[in-house]
Every structure is written in structure tokens, then in C-alpha cells.
């Protein structure tokens, strides 16, 4: 097991280098730079050129890349040009990462709780009314565009039934960790729930059909022939087998935390990494963009690693001796 993990970690190194080159090139391909638009239209082109030179933005991309990688290895992700001018990128991300992380974790937990319980309920009552209702509901949430759904949830639970705050993270740097933790829960819950309801539908449909497939397998008949009650057969045999293909996806869900946050944070006015990414993009804040994309790349690689570990853990047939 440990050798498998070590081998997977070693493979990640060349992957990481490739990802960093791609990210850097993509950022460079964006039209404009941080100084366009941030300065007075009447500014002297010579001034802009001087500022570009000072920031090293007039060098060819590969020289910029080498410089950037050298700094990243030393933990220096650069300084923001636009979003929080003058702040180090590490400081900005350090401040924004906690709200996104807490929202992402709540969303992931809710997603699995909601989809597993719905799928079990539907599969146990195949073709009955409750099954139909769940199918219709999940088809509906997958058909409606996510942003429409976000606004509906916002209107419903912030204005019509005002039980959740409309914006903010509930985190105050002057307060203690525990105070922040609990006050943040209230702010993070609505966007997390919205993301969860939205990402439940694909897992629900997949798991439901897996459960029905597994129900027809021979080992289920064996368990019944032993005298195991049908509800225990579901709990002890069917659910675990049906969950296998989905379990390997759990790892990838940490990759989705940042991606899912982009819309939700913007709509719910929840200033985390997703909202930061949108701000940085519109301001061409290179250092912030590349840092965030690098973070996302690392998350994706870690997600893949986690998925492999989880599938080896739950499925004895995958384990390498």
C-alpha cells in the first residue's frame, strides 16, 4: 500500500512541472496586463513601459517563467498588482482560503449525505411514487442552470425566509478561532447547501442505477439464501458494492471545491478564493491568477492521489501487492 502511494507521489512531480508551465503560458496569453486600465488613460506610455520593466513583464515568457518558478520554490508567489495592491499573494490567499475551505467541506459532506440517502430511498422503492419524485427533482436540478438556482436559493432563504445572512463570511481576524468557526458556519451553510443540492443529481442518478444493478447480482441471492433480511442485505452488501465507482470520485471532489466556489461565492457575496479568482481575472492580476491556478493544479493532482488511495482501500481487487 505504502509503495503504491510513494510511486503515485513520485509521478506527481513531472505532472506538477507540466501543469506549472501550462498555467504560466495561459496567463501570458491573456490580452492586456495589470497596468492597462489601472492607470489614468492620459498616462505617458513611457511611464507604463517603465512600470512593466520594473515588474519584469517585458522579458520573454520563458525568462519570466524561470524567475517565477525560482520564487515559488522559495515560497514567494509575488505581490498583487490589482486586487490588494502591495499585499503578497501568500497573504491574500492565506486570508481567503479558510472561508472557501469551510464552505467546500460542508458542501462535500452535504453532497454525499444527500445523494446517498436519496439514492437508497429511491432504489429501495423502485418505480414507486417516492422514487419518481426523487428522479424528477434531480432531473430538474440538473436541467436548471446553476446561477438561476443560486438566485432562487438566495431569494428564498435570505429575503422571503430570512434565516441566512445575505453576504460576508462571518470571519473577523480580531476574534478567536472558535468564535470565527461558529459564526462562519451560518454564513457558509447556504452557499454550501446550494452547491450540494446542485452536485447531488449526478451522484444520485449514478448511485441509484448502481444500487439497482447490484441488487440483481448473484451474491445478493446468496445473502438472501443465508436468511439475511433484505434491509440488511442492502446495508451490508449492496451499498458498499454500489458505492465503489463513486468512492473513487470522492478524491476528485476536493478538486471541485475551488471550481464550485467561483459562481457560488460571487452570487452569495462570500469573499473566498472563488470570488478572488473572478476579481483577479478581470484585473489581469497575473501573480494572483497564476498562484490560484497553481493551487488548483496541485489540488487536482492531490485529488487524483486521494482517489487512488480510496479505491485501493475500499476495493480489495485494486490493492497492489
Amino acid at each position, binding site marked *: 500500500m505504502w509503495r503504491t502511494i510513494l510511486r503515485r507521489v513520485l509521478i506527481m512531480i513531472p505532472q506538477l512541472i507540466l501543469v506549472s508551465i501550462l498555467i504560466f503560458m495561459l496567463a501570458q496569453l491573456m490580452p492586456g496586463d495589470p497596468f492597462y486600465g489601472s492607470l489614468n488613460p492620459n498616462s505617458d506610455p513611457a511611464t507604463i513601459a517603465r512600470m512593466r520593466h520594473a515588474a519584469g513583464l517585458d522579458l520573454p515568457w520563458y525568462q519570466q517563467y524561470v524567475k517565477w518558478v525560482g520564487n515559488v520554490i522559495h515560497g514567494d508567489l509575488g505581490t498583487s498588482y490589482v486586487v490588494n495592491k502591495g499585499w503578497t499573494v501568500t497573504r491574500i490567499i492565506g486570508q481567503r482560503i479558510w472561508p472557501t475551505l469551510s464552505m467546500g467541506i460542508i458542501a462535500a459532506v452535504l453532497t454525499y449525505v444527500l445523494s446517498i440517502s436519496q439514492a437508497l430511498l429511491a432504489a429501495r422503492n423502485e418505480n414507486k411514487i417516492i422514487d419518481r419524485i426523487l428522479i424528477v427533482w434531480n432531473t430538474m436540478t440538473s436541467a436548471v442552470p446553476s446561477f438561476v438556482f443560486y438566485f432562487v436559493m438566495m431569494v428564498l432563504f435570505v429575503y422571503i425566509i430570512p434565516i441566512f445572512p445575505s453576504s460576508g463570511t462571518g470571519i473577523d481576524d480580531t476574534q478567536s478561532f472558535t468564535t470565527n468557526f461558529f459564526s462562519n458556519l451560518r454564513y457558509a451553510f447556504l452557499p454550501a447547501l446550494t452547491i450540494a443540492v446542485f452536485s447531488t443529481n449526478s451522484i444520485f442518478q449514478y448511485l441509484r442505477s448502481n444500487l439497482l444493478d447490484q441488487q440483481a447480482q*448473484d*451474491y445478493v441471492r*446468496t*445473502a438472501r*439464501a*443465508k*436468511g439475511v433480511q433484505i434491509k440488511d442485505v442492502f446495508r451490508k452488501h449492496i451499498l458498499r458494492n454500489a458505492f465503489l465507482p463513486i468512492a473513487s470520485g470522492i478524491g476528485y471532489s476536493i478538486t471541485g471545491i475551488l471550481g464550485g466556489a467561483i459562481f457560488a461565492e460571487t452570487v452569495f457575496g462570500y469573499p473566498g478564493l472563488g470570488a478572488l479568482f473572478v476579481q483577479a481575472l478581470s484585473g489581469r492580476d497575473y501573480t494572483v491568477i497564476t498562484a490560484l491556478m497553481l493551487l488548483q493544479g496541485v489540488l487536482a493532482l492531490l485529488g487524483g492521489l486521494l482517489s487512488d488511495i480510496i479505491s485501493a482501500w475500499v476495493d480489495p481487487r485494486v490493492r497492489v501487492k
Partner: protein
Amino acid sequence: MDGKLLEAKNVSVDFRIDGQYQTAIHKLNISIKHGEVVALVGESGSGKSTFAMSVMGLHNSDQTRVTGSIKLNDNELIGLSERQFDAYRGVSVGMIFQDPLSSLNPLMKIGDQIAEAITVHDKQSKKVKQRVQKLISDVGIVDVQRVSQQYPHELSGGMRQRVMIAIALANEPDLIIADEPTTALDATIQAQILDLIKEIQQKKNAGILLITHDLGVVAEMADTVTVMYAGQIVEQARVSDLFNHPKHPYTRSLLRADPSEVNSGDELYAIPGTVPALKDMDHSKDLFLKRVPWLDKAEVEATVDEKLQKVSDGHYVRGNAWQNFEFLEDL
């Protein structure tokens, strides 16, 4: 012990297909005594496994209707609730299935799968571990400790079938249903598994319902044979009578189609046609006659007595066709 272990009378099974019930088994009578091995033979689709599922109560109750009477040790099984069936499955009847790989849960250790068969009926049992190990060694597995910690995919086909047998035997049932127990195994392993089943059966004096389409297995294992075609019994006899004096044309055809009976170089006989679909089964006729190409229409369509006709003591056959057939004595 005297008397019947299993007695099935007038058992019919209907499946609901597109809202209509269609008959898969029509008025089946079969009985098994303690210590007796009864073989149930027929092509795929003749209703052998359907009958076994009725004895186990494993049909989907929404889609299936089972009528008649199935008595095990004089207790009526038809009409039991799901919970009542759970209490008797695995205790009074153990079942061995065809494909031991798919019949075992791929994610559960062998020891746990056998232990479940015990604990599900006896939650307080303290000696579960010892009993599991005893069962594993009883079915001829030497490396008991290691095997109980392994997963099904780590074992060979023969080992897996031994595990299935251990599960079926867990609570020392009076009746063992073996549904094609050797079909998925290599020829060399088949003999070992059959010997094992036979040995256990003799030791425990259990009755066995052996479902197979391999007549070699029947000759080796069974005391009596019931031949089924299209959901009905066509012939019922002791093994020696059936092999030496088969009466029904279907039994004759099956024996001719058995590859082990054919000399090398001879062409293997294949029965023309297939078992009719459920909706085409008219159980008032002798359905097999449709597959005898040289019979005239009147004979094929003739209505047949519902009761089997007695040929000799313990030898029964369906319809009148057997009286009109002149068979060459050398098969």
C-alpha cells in the same frame, strides 16, 4: 427418520409479464426423502431453477405467483411472510449456486461471509469463529487461517465452490439445493466437488435437490431423476430405470445428446428447435412433440392427461407418445 423431507404438490409458478401472468411451472409434483438425492434435469428454460427459487422463497413477490403446496418437514412454505422465510432460509435449507465467483460478495472476506450465515440466525453465538474454521476444514480446505482472511478473487474456482458449500452447510440444513454446482468448474475440479457433496450428504443424511443438465453428474450422484420440459415433468424414475429404459422421447433425446455417451468420431446428436417461450406454452399438450419433426399434426396437438402414467413401480411418464415410439435399443 421416515417420511418426506420435501413434498411439493401441484406447484405452479406464474411470472407477471406486461401485466399478465404466464406460467413457467405447471403443476409440479416432487418429493425428497431424508438422505435422498433427487436430480432435476432439463434444458435451459425448462423451469428447474424456478422451482428451486420457489422452495427458497426467493422470487420477487410482486412479479411472481406461486400456488400449490410445498412442505418441508410437514411445514407449509407457500404463503409464508418474508420474515418467516428469512428464519427458515439457511437453517432448514442451504443452497449452492452455479457460479461461485459472482455468488460471493467481492468485498467481503471469506471468513466473514461464512460467519454471516451463522450470526444471522444466532446473534448470541460465541463460538462463531471456531464454527467457521470447522466449516472451512470440513469442506476440504487445508489452509484454514489464510483462506478465511482472503477475498473471493484470491481463490480458485474449486476453492470458491468449497466456500459456497461451507456457507450452505453452516446451520446443518436438512435439505441442500445444488443449482448446477459444477457447471462453472473445470472437469477435474467437478469430480472433487461432487465427491465432497456426496460425502457431506452421507455424513449428515441430508436430502439433496440436484439441478443439472449434465447427465454424467446425475448418474454419479442421484437416486431418482425428474426430467422437466417447458415447466412440466415429463418423466420421473430411479436412476437405473431412467438410463436403461427411458420412455419419454425427450428423455431419449437428452440421453442421445449427452457428449459423454458418444463414441469418438460419431456425430453428436442435437435436439432440433428450442424450448418454447412462456407465452407459447400450452400445458394441456405434450409440448416436446413439437420438436419431433416426423410426427403428424394431430399427434402433436393431442391433449394429454394431466396425470403422469405409471410405467412400473416408481417410474412415471407424461403423455401417450412413449407407447407409440419404437426405439432402437442401442442408444
